[in-house]
């Protein structure tokens, strides 16, 4: 892979992750439906996971898996740690989303609406 392509790919990953974070935040901050807010938060999570992967990327990197015959070639392996972290973060994000959705079901039962502006019995 030549240098230019590598740069473009890297910028693509990082820029994409930032874009995802911003899109997610926009959804979470402006959409009025609870479901959409949760989707927004999930997008933010996705962006951050991409960011984590992006920082571990190295030029001409290969997956950090030692295939038979290549046991000693650690030189170009991408950083495995962010990948492990992302694995954990994805599961946690999933768990939080599940809880959030269940709360939305409860809220819908109670308020009969999904508009976040109308769910503010608790204030001040």
């Amino acid at each position, binding site marked *: 892979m030549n240098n230019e392509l590598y740069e473009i790919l890297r910028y693509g990953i990082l820029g994409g992750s930032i874009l995802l*974070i911003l899109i997610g935040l926009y959804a*979470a901050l402006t959409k009025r439906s*609870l479901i959409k*807010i949760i989707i927004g*938060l999930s997008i*933010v*999570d996705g962006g*951050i996971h991409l*960011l*984590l992967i992006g*920082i571990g990327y190295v030029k001409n990197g290969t997956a950090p898996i030692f295939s038979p015959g290549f046991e000693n070639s650690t030189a170009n392996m991408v950083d495995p*740690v*962010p990948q492990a*972290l992302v694995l*954990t*973060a994805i599961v*946690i*994000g999933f*768990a*939080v989303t599940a*809880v*959030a959705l269940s*709360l*939305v079901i*409860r*809220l819908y039962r*109670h*308020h009969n609406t999904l508009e976040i502006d109308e*769910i*503010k*019995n*608790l204030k*001040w």
Partner: protein
Amino acid sequence: MVGSPVLLIAIPLLAAFLIPLIGMIWKESVRLIPGLVLAFMLVSSASMLLYVTNNSTIIETIAGWQAPWGINLVFSPLTGFLATLMIFLGFIVWLFSYRFKRNVDFEPAKKYFIFLMMLVAGAVGIVITGDIFNQFVFIEITSISAYALTAFYTGRNSAEASFKYLLMGSLSSSALLIAIAIIYSQLGTLNMADIADKMYLMPTGYKITALIFFFMGIGIEAEIFPLNGWAPDAYTEAPGPIGAAFAGIVVKAGVYAMIRLVFTLFDIPNSMQFLVVIGLVTLIVAETSAIKQDKLKRMLAYSSIGQMGLVFVAFGIGTAEGVFAALFLMLNHAIIKPLLFLSGSYLVFNSKEKKISEVNGLGKHMPITSLLFALGAFAIVGLPPFSGFWSKLSVLTAAANEGMILIIALVLIVSVVEIVYYFRVVNRIYFFEKSDNVVVQKPRINAMIAMLILGSIILVIGFDPDIVSIYLHKASHDLMNTREYIDNVLSIGQSLTK
């Protein structure tokens, strides 16, 4: 070695997985096992605390890999002190809610106790872990338990409170992940001691950006000002004992994470001033918001936030004295605020709205509970000879020694506000006539014991604060000595920077 810190995490996890199984056979076990686990944790943690106070810090490696590579648990005087405090409160909350309401079914009750136990385990994990990503995982464990506990009662607006909490908590975990990503990308390590050791290598711009994202992530847990909108709702709608657990356990863990960052990880002097400013803003906004509340628990929640602001101010003073004062404040707040929440939840037990006006004249009908509430109110506003006074005095002394006279004045003015709203409630309890439609609920014996334990601690610390000061001194020394922390953790393996 007197014990193993990892058991403080592993045993509750084991129990949490076991309870659904045993609960199918023996129903009482779902209440009993968490108590036993918490008692075990308390004994183990307390004995380790005694050990580390007199000897060296306990460092436990996990999976056999030494400090910078594997995850390790650090049981130092500071973390041990906080962990013991949290476990103790968890035990008190368990004792209080051992039999909470008759109309709660078996299934929710089972989950309640699992979550309570995991809340404590998660908070203890936050405190004793030595790895920054591991801390993130424990924060999530604590948060999910907290969301579930907030939404425990189906009849109220609890889902709304829980959703707000979750919304903020979700942002918090995003911010934490970004911060962790920045740190890892620069330093290539996740171990706190290792990060602290190498922090000077990090470019200032990244350092501060990371710190800012950490502030946001942990600030949400630690309830600093613009990020604490969820807190009053969650405190109000959660079951009474859980409000106590939030005030005593969850927030303390957040505060710990924050100070660990500021004191150990990042060597940015301005962050101390930031702590002072943000603490003062939190203190003022929260206390002034509390004065016009008409719901008891909400008032207590705002007061709790305000106290956390004061804790941050005390930490922000930045001297060993300031840290001592802040830890003392945390200890007192962790004892007093749960007492207020627990006794307060009995005072408004049968009421639907949980209004302050419904506690009128209960002093005659539930004398001990009211007395304990009044004791808590007296202590939290810092009236001698109760424990709150000593911590407030320590904070002010520490601030005065640094010449922060304006801060002293502000803190004291806010204290007057605090006095106003607490005494309004106490007056209502004792000197008003009870209205007829309020049904008095006598506390159960286990709840009474739990509250009396807390009340007696307030008195004991109030009359002899030196009982705890040795641990606090050790802990503040521990926090101030970053180098010692790094050496302790990293000495068992060789440092990566050759």
